[in-house]
């Protein structure tokens, strides 16, 4: 009797611990994701990036914290006055780690393309030749892995727009992609609730491209 009670208590403890691990992760992620939305300075960006890296250190089997850390580094490089190459290189390092955990993931692949696009933007004249096909190819792969991924489509649209501007051709292709992207964002929005941890960013970028199509 005593023994079975103990077994019960023990199994209860295990269950509690097993379940307890995930809420802790989820809560930590939610905290950083909500902090991410209010970033105004490079310092704040660094603090949230650090938060994601801490989660990634504690949960080495999760790709999402690495993904967010890489995303923040990429955005910071575009947005703030920093050593852009250094930030993009670190973002690439984090993306590569995430890719090892979850190979052939459309979100990770799209972000990888975003980082390549960032590296390209630092010195387009000399890096364009090598990197623009690489970025295109990576976005293409991200779309092929998940046709419903609005970020893959939007980033491809951004790349197409840049190419169209460089070669002075029309933005039709970019506009078409941006439109598809916006439809996918609408679809995605329906699924988002307070427990949604997966990436949701990119609608603003799609809107910006679409705005140039009128």
């Amino acid at each position, binding site marked *: 009797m005593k023994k079975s009670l103990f077994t019960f*208590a023990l199994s209860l*403890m295990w269950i509690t611990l097993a379940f307890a691990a995930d809420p802790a992760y989820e809560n*930590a992620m939610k905290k950083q994701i909500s902090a991410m939305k209010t970033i105004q300075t490079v310092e704040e960006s660094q*603090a949230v990036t650090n938060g994601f890296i801490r989660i990634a*250190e504690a949960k080495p089997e999760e790709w999402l914290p690495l993904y967010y850390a890489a995303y923040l580094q990429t955005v910071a490089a575009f947005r703030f006055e920093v050593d852009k190459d250094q930030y993009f290189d670190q973002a690439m390092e984090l993306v590569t780690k995430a890719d090892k955990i979850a190979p052939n993931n459309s979100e990770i692949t799209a972000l990888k393309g975003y980082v390549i696009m960032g590296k390209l933007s630092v010195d387009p004249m*000399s890096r364009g*030749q090598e990197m623009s096909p690489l970025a295109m190819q990576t976005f293409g792969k991200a779309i092929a892995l998940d046709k419903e991924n609005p970020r893959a489509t939007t980033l491809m649209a951004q790349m197409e727009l840049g190419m169209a501007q460089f*070669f002075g051709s029309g933005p039709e292709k970019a506009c078409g992609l941006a439109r598809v992207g916006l439809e996918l964002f609408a679809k995605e929005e329906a699924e988002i609730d307070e427990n949604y941890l997966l990436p949701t960013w990119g609608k603003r970028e799609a809107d910006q491209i679409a705005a140039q199509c009128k």
Partner: protein
Amino acid sequence: MNSRILLFTFFLLNQTLAFGQTVISGKVFDEKGMPLPGANVFIKGSFDGTSSDVLGAFEFQSTETGDQLLVVRMMGYKSQDLPIHLSQSKLEIPDINLVEEFNEMNTVTISAGAMEASDEKKSVILRPLDIVTTPSAMGDIVGAFQTLPGTSTVGNDGRLFVRGGDASEVGIYIDGMRVGNAYGTTAGNVPTRTRFNPNLFKGTFFSTGGYSAEYGQALSSALALNTKDLAVRSQGDLSIMSVGGGYAHTLANEKRSISISGNIFDLKPYQNLIKQDFDWERAPYGLDLEVAAQHKLNNGGLIKVLARTETGGMKLWQPLPGIEGKGILVDLTNNYSYAQTNWRKAYDNGWTLFGGYSFSHNKDFISYDDLDIERKNNLSHIKFSAIKDFSDRISSKTGVEYFIHDYSETLVEEDLDRSFGEREAYLFTEWDWYLSKKFVLRGGLRAGHSQLSEEQWLDPRASLAYKLSDSGTLSLATGRFHQLPVDNFRVLNPELKNSASNHLILNYLYQNEGITFRAETFYKSYDNLVTFEGLPQFPQNLRNEGKGFAKGFDVFFRDQKTFKNTDYWVTYSYVDSKRSYNQFETQVQPDFAPKHNFSVVVKHFIVPLKSQLGASYSFNDGYTFTDPNLPGEMNSKTTAYQNLSISWSYLPKPNLIIHAAVTNVFGNENIFGYAFAQNPNEQGKFESLPIGQPAPRFLFLGIFLTLSKDKNANQLNNL
């Protein structure tokens, strides 16, 4: 009983989880004691942690207990793992000092004698794209380097001449492997080009002296070309040019890529349209086939293969001074093959290993008047090297090399031949020591052995660099360099020893957001140069008795910032060089070393026209020559050399490029020297003929089309 204890432990554990919180606080500084904001501080294996604030301070709560690791991490700094013990409610960590990590981006680079063309690294002077878009270069790698400091243009030769050195003093390497006969074989006074297409390479390292112990057998300069890694996509490239055409096909996936290309060039149709100053019987022509393959191994290594085979020739009349008529008929055919493979792998423990093998085969058949000569040259190079990063401050590179070199010359009709076989072995080691981020010392040693000349030698090399400011660097390089004489001398006297040179170079480099300024001054001594008696065509009594020097300075200024969509660079090189060599009994200024060398390259992109316009202008003050009608050696100088070239690249569609270029727009009559009759005429005067250009101008028109699923692909690198 047991269960009771366990239950008790379980509750105790729960209590700890609820109440055993520790507040951990501290401060993070750099080496100099300045606060480091944004450092990531956390307990390893937990979610507990924070970032340091503006003052470097951090404070966070942790529910962990017992022995833990506190990790302090920051980009650009070495991470620290501090063992801590959590038992009380408060834990103050003593001040943490993070040490900055040395990497390529934040440390000083030795720039004495070095000019790098690369997309990746800092301290680059040119980008690979700059090479193909320099108008006077006509797509030749060496042509673009002739607009850089320390070089002089020798228009009737076409090869690279560095700081008063002969063209044979430049060693050319592909992926660290020596290339034999890197230039196309040509008849006297017909300029040549490098055999290799610039689009094979992702980066170029060009040294004007004081270079690494990794390279040897080059008294003046090392030109190291690095081939591209994996191709990014499958595509076909078609080119149609006024001088020929070609097609290249690339197949690529994430693991491997292969590119096969075939080209044909023939100047005949062009020469039929445009009048030439040379008397061509058969215009230069050529055919080549090239394969480049890259393979990524599963363990992270990379294997590259490059193979090229080509055949070509030309036939022309070379006039003789003082003699009426067409002169002498020179008929030349050349067969050349080059193959190399190399393997490289970087290991996690700081070792990088490299192994390579290259083979060059060159066969010339020359008919000079009624003399038929066959010339064969085979060169094999085997090399292993290992790089070890002991820390971010000390690294070394050590390697061993072996050369098998066989050369022969045959007089076909007379059935006479002469040849030599040479085996050379080398050992080199080079150490980099970063005393601080601003100061680096490099020391190297290269030991060589030649079987043929029965010689052993040791070349010490040293350099250092000091960062004066964020943008300015001062570097100094010195070293000893040995080179065995050229093949056609060694075959006459296999006992010829190495020639030697000592270099001393002081360099200042300023680089800041689109502005590059580079100034360099140098002194170079020459010893044991080959001298002989008689005419250069028939040298006799060859021996190592020549000596000389070269000294001077050069300045380089490049500006990509001031004018929108415009990039220009200006170069001036002053060389004062004298040497006793070849048939010269006294120390003279060589004909390949003009004193004042000046060049400007301007490129401007016009967005609405989708075009890049380019112009390059070169000037030097003329070439020395010996006028036998006057006393002394090298007693005269030609008029100044000038060349203005322009080019226009038009990109109507992303995958189509139309490129047009004209050299020597103003048709300046450049003279590179004079050929004199061997005997005086009736008036007792040696008659002469000027050595000039094949034609006043050269016109080029090409259409480059890329066929690929990706419609934006183009051939910008193939121009």
